[in-house]
């Protein structure tokens, strides 16, 4: 159906050896070793094909036209000038686009009606023989819009704020234990503060892009997605095709961070455009277009109230989070959910409220909920420590819960205290005996024009698992092909799954080939929620163990001619897991400096210590932790998407204005992890590490800035404009 995208892995089975009489056991475990990244060779040579890198003969190119009003209707689309342009093959708009069947996500019902629900919504698509002809054609499409008054700004007092039933990931919107007001009234030390985090954009390096073509009624797409199973199912639904008639290939994906966690308009539009012009179509959104079309992290406003007794024990925790969604669908960032389990307290209240604005729908962005939520909670804990004159590491340790403080269920494993202790010692916060040697006074450490300080914050992220399928096939005693529709968005999924497969088969890793990134393999879950390794790995483990058992049991330990194959599905195992609170935890330490002359904030040092179950591959894991912490640093100091309330668009919508950390911003980052054994997770004992690194970083930075300067920043990012004029 297409030239196959499955490339052989780099390590081939040893050639030319005498035929083995049976499958040999592995001499050593593969999990836990720094197995090199399988596809790195393809990437350093520029040969790894991403969504629009595949050579597709006869491809046309699509370019989108976006709405310029935040709310209104498309009155008319004049395509005549565009169609007259050299090279333009066709123009799609709601007047001529094919009808789609609803699959429940209104963002994907592209070009289905005249309604404009946000600025930047796609209102037409031009298809041409070259990208530049398509762009020139798009400039010539005349879209007449009737704009109405729009409401695009999140405010704490917005009259349309409401409490939803559920928030993201299915959590209840509200939780209450005891009486927070009474707990606060009884407290000797209190904090009541409001924190703000801005809208942020993922800025994965690969913009959302799709190559699509139709072949004998089947739809094939190369899509830069974190979830090709979901994309294929969605396309089948939208285009009313049998599921097996859609194939989505995502062999290499240039980052995602949540923005590619589900199908996005680009993949639907590319399929529509390919059908319109009867040839393959490549649609690569520009960086600027992404800011409206590909999702963002909602801004949040969070009030945290803490009350503690004179001994530092928390009596009350209140966390009220406000965020925005669109007029199209309800997305509620779960910002207060982490406050349900981080610390013990008899009186607790968490709430979420949301308002539907004339804006694009927010989406998951690396550690949705925990990332903005930890900025608020972990800053507030630091404020409480200052107010009570307690050491912030000690304060956290003193409020460690024995069981999940709201659900009263056990933790599958929890080593936050150990992370804090280990980190404090490594960072020089405490000495070898555990005594605090950090001077708690703010604004007293000078280094030339700079004020220097240190801060700490805790991290957490849920350890989720979702059903997946995998296929394991033996074709010879030294040749095992394992397939699972994982997406390697840069995490190293391909590499660690091969390690997991080798151990489950109990064979040397060189015997194992792994294939990922193709919906034709069979259903598997998204590369998101830090659950990829756990979910795919479980299916891989099950398939591989069954395969090896079958070889041993039915074939005397020899792979028969014609091979043996086993397909596994983990739906039942995951459904039947006992109830535990499953989370990874960590502690992050930061040293920051602030120029008294310019207000510039720089981070000197970051240390993260994590307890995240078994680490499959130290090299890829370390890079994941550091990458997460760097994105956290970037969010702490730089990232903000500024919305112009008059037009409803993000005016900082490109990489010139939306600044992410460059190499010069990033200091020495140290990462360590505890050897955590947890039998209640999955057969591999892994917790997931893609997101926890970003959780708490911003608070650690803000707390360090406070320690350096005495200035408490509750509104991210922390920039020189907030510092200048307050420093001496």
């Amino acid at each position: 159906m297409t030239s196959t995208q499955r490339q052989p892995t780099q390590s081939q089975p040893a050639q030319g050896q005498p035929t083995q009489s049976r499958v040999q056991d592995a001499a050593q475990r593969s999990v836990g070793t720094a197995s090199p990244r399988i596809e790195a060779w393809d990437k350093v040579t520029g040969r790894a094909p991403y969504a629009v890198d595949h050579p597709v003969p006869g491809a046309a190119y699509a370019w989108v036209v976006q709405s310029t009003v935040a709310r209104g209707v498309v009155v008319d689309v004049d395509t005549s000038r565009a169609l007259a342009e050299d090279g333009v093959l066709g123009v799609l708009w709601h007047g001529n686009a094919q009808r789609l069947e609803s699959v429940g996500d209104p963002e994907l019902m592209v070009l289905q009606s005249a309604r404009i629900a946000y600025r930047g919504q796609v209102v037409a698509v031009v298809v041409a023989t070259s990208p530049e002809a398509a762009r020139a054609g798009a400039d010539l499409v005349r879209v007449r819009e009737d704009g109405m008054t729009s409401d695009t700004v999140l405010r704490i007092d917005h009259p349309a704020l409401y409490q939803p039933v559920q928030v993201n990931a299915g959590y209840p919107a509200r939780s209450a234990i005891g009486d927070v007001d009474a707990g606060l009234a009884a407290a000797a030390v209190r904090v009541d503060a409001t924190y703000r985090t801005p809208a942020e954009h993922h800025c994965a390096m690969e913009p959302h892009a799709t190559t699509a073509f139709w072949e004998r009624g089947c739809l094939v797409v190369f899509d830069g997605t974190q979830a090709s199973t979901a994309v294929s199912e969605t396309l089948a639904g939208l285009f009313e095709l049998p599921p097996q008639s859609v194939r989505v290939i995502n062999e290499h994906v240039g980052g995602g961070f949540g923005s590619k966690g589900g199908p996005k308009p680009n993949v639907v539009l590319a399929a529509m455009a390919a059908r319109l012009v009867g040839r393959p179509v490549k649609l690569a959104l520009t960086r600027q277009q992404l800011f409206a079309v590909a999702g963002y992290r909602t801004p949040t406003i969070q009030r945290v109230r803490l009350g503690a007794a004179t001994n530092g024990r928390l009596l009350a925790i209140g966390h009220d989070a406000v965020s925005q969604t669109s007029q199209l669908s309800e997305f509620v960032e779960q910002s207060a959910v982490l406050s349900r389990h981080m610390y013990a307290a008899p009186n607790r209240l968490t709430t979420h409220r949301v308002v539907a604005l004339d804006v694009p729908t927010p989406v998951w962005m690396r550690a949705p909920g925990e990332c903005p939520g930890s900025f608020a909670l972990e800053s507030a804990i630091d404020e409480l420590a200052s107010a009570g004159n307690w050491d912030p590491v000690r304060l956290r340790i003193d409020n460690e819960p024995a069981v999940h403080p709201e659900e009263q269920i056990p933790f599958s494993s929890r080593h936050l205290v150990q992370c804090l202790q280990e980190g404090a010692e490594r960072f020089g916060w405490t000495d070898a005996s555990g005594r605090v040697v950090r001077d708690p006074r703010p604004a007293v450490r000078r280094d030339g024009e700079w004020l220097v300080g240190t801060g700490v914050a805790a991290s957490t992220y849920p350890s989720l698992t979702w059903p997946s399928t995998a296929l394991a096939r033996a074709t010879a005693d030294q040749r095992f092909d394992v397939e699972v529709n994982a997406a390697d968005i840069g995490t190293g999924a391909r590499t660690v799954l091969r390690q997991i497969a080798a151990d489950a088969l109990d064979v040397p890793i060189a015997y194992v080939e792994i294939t990922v990134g193709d919906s034709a393999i069979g259903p598997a879950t998204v590369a998101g929620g830090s659950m990829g390794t756990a979910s795919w790995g479980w299916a891989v483990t099950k398939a591989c163990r069954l395969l090896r058992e079958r070889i041993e049991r039915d074939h005397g330990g020899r792979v028969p001619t014609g091979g043996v194959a086993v397909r596994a599905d983990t739906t039942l195992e995951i459904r039947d897991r006992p109830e535990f609170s499953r989370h990874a935890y960590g502690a992050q330490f930061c040293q920051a400096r602030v120029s008294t002359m310019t207000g510039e904030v720089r981070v000197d040092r970051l240390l993260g210590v994590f307890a995240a179950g078994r680490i499959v591959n130290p090299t890829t894991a370390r890079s994941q932790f550091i990458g997460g912490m760097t994105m956290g640093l970037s969010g702490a100091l730089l990232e903000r998407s500024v919305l112009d309330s008059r037009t409803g668009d993000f005016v900082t919508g490109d990489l010139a204005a939306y600044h992410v950390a460059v190499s010069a911003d990033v200091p020495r980052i140290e990462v360590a992890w505890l050897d955590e054994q947890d039998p209640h997770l999955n057969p591999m004992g892994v917790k997931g590490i893609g997101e926890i690194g970003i959780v708490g970083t911003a608070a650690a930075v803000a707390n360090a800035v406070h320690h350096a300067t005495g200035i408490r920043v509750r509104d991210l990012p922390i920039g020189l404009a907030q510092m200048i004029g307050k420093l001496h």
Partner: protein
Amino acid sequence: MRVNLTVNGEARQADDVWPGESLLYVLRERLGLPGAKNACEQGECGSCTVYLDGTPVCACLVAAGQAEHRDVRTVEGLPGPDGLDPVQQAFLSAGAVQCGFCTPGLVVAVHDLLARNPTPSDPDIREALAGNLCRCTGYENIVAAVKLAAGA
């Protein structure tokens, strides 16, 4: 118009090039060299970094006509006849690759950095690579790769 240029040591020709096309488009869509990536098309990310007459530039901002009779070297042209360039090998060894989309541009940028400064300090490296955004790695292993290649 027709553009004649040398790419990775070979004389190449692209026909029917529209003046508004960038060198990046010519390489990717007309010459079959998708190694250089388009991630911002305005010089803000470095993903499209290629050598133009021996100097690293953002190919997205070079008008196609400006490449006429020029010498272009892309990531695809770095490996020698006997395998990977030392910079590419260092990226592999140091684990400096994640999603890989920034990698081709970074490899070219590092290749140039080491040609000009064979023993760069940590701040030298971080400043020299500030034009190459990476969203995955936190740059740590990229800096390690530069040092590794420098010592090679």
